[in-house]
């Protein structure tokens, strides 16, 4: 029995050995031999490939994923193309369009109560968020809502609520980020990180940061007490607007945070000096 140039003995060997390579090249192979043998062999090995993920522990998806899928089939917005900042945000569960009216007033009341227990500058921030919610609620009262408008307002409300859940928490920690390069001194960007008491949910507000240079992106890093720098994702500010990021996860032992400029898509570790950096944490009771 002679081997071919690549060492395979039979057509079946070639099929079995190369199938994953072909799939990784984006090709669904056709059988080399027409007829029962070739087609059934190919089918068998394809089914083996299809069986492989069954070894993994199943992971139940979030109910919101199915809801978004079904909404997209109905043409109620389709798969949402997240803004880059939403890619590391969007942790707050979506709510039924019909349900938001029920919690708008309790939310406003909760906000008012929460205002009593926070420091002044945090209060200012919360008031801004409260105004935003009031404006959105006003829109909903006066506008004869089309489904698209409702979805947009709902999304904005959800985002506002996510930020407020961090801001309004008792024991929130605040860390200011400062520019690290002198050339930025004329119009320096500023940023403030709010971390909820669970040390997982966080909200970062960045002002004055220009859009990233072409082919570059800003990347956020959490620096742990073990010295590792863990990426929290990339983002690109819109011109003239505040950038707001939020997420539900933060590495354990985070002691500092920084923002660097990296190639599009991000880097596995910072490749440039921090543009903004902060490691002084103040706790607001």
């Amino acid at each position, binding site marked *: 029995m002679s081997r071919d140039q690549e060492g395979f003995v039979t057509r079946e060997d070639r099929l079995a050995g190369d199938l*994953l390579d072909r799939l990784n090249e984006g090709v669904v192979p056709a059988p080399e031999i027409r007829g029962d043998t070739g087609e059934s062999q190919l089918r068998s090995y394809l089914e083996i490939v299809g069986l492989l993920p069954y070894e993994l522990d199943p992971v139940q998806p979030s109910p919101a994923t199915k809801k978004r899928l079904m909404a997209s089939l109905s043409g109620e917005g389709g798969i949402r193309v997240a803004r880059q900042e939403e890619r590391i945000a969007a942790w707050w569960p979506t709510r039924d369009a019909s349900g938001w009216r029920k919690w708008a007033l309790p939310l406003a009341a909760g906000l008012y109560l929460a205002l009593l227990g926070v420091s002044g500058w945090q209060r200012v921030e919360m008031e801004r968020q409260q105004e935003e919610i009031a404006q959105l609620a006003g829109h909903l009262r006066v506008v004869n809502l089309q489904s698209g408008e409702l979805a947009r307002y709902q999304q904005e409300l959800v985002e506002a609520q996510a930020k407020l859940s961090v801001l309004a928490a008792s024991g929130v920690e605040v860390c200011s980020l400062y520019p690290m390069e002198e050339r930025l001194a004329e119009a320096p960007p500023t940023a403030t990180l709010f971390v909820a008491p669970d040390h997982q949910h966080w909200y970062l507000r960045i002002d004055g940061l220009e859009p990233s240079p072409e082919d570059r992106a800003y990347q956020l890093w959490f620096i742990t007490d073990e010295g590792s720098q863990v990426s929290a994702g990339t983002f690109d500010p819109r011109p003239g607007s505040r950038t707001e990021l939020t997420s539900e996860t933060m590495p354990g032992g985070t002691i500092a945070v920084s923002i660097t400029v990296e190639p599009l898509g991000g880097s596995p570790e910072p490749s440039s000096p921090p543009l903004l950096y902060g490691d002084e944490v103040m706790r607001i009771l």
Partner: protein
Amino acid sequence: MQPSDNSPGAGSGNPSRIDDKELLRAIVGRKQEAVAELYDRFSSMLLALAYRVLGNSQDAEEILQEAFLQVWNQAARYDPKRSSVSTWLVLITRSRAIDRLRSRQVQMRTVTAAQQEKPASHTSPTGVGDVLLHERQRRLGEEMSKLPPEQRQVLELAFYGGSTQSEIAEETGIPLGTVKTRTLLAMKKLRAALQEEIGDLL
């Protein structure tokens, strides 16, 4: 002979449930409830796959959603002679996940970060499909664990990492011929061991 798709999703042993292929035909007919049913049958396995490839829950759920949207749009392209519905869904999801992985010019998360994050799994009622899913999981786990570690390694790098055999050889320092041999042996062993499962899908 009309193929019978007895995947866990199809509800083997429960003839009252609609066959996976019937569901796909209903999707071609723009029945949204058929997508919902197919999703309920396969989403937990497909999400596990996407998470294994990407190591990130949010990305994995996005891929899952995109995959089912592709099913909705391209159900008519499914050819029952080429593969079972289950395998077709796996190939779609894996392909999208690998594309997403490659589109990250560099991996966004360090290995440490990926290991820290656990996939968020939500509870769902246990049904016939779950029992069959767990049985298939048990069988695959059993057979995969019988593979020598070096064969399992190349299979995982190729399947979950999207690496070609040449790339695996380069990454691991193992000669290309050895990588090919290990892949071939692993595939042939699985084919021999999983005859019953393959038969259920044909």
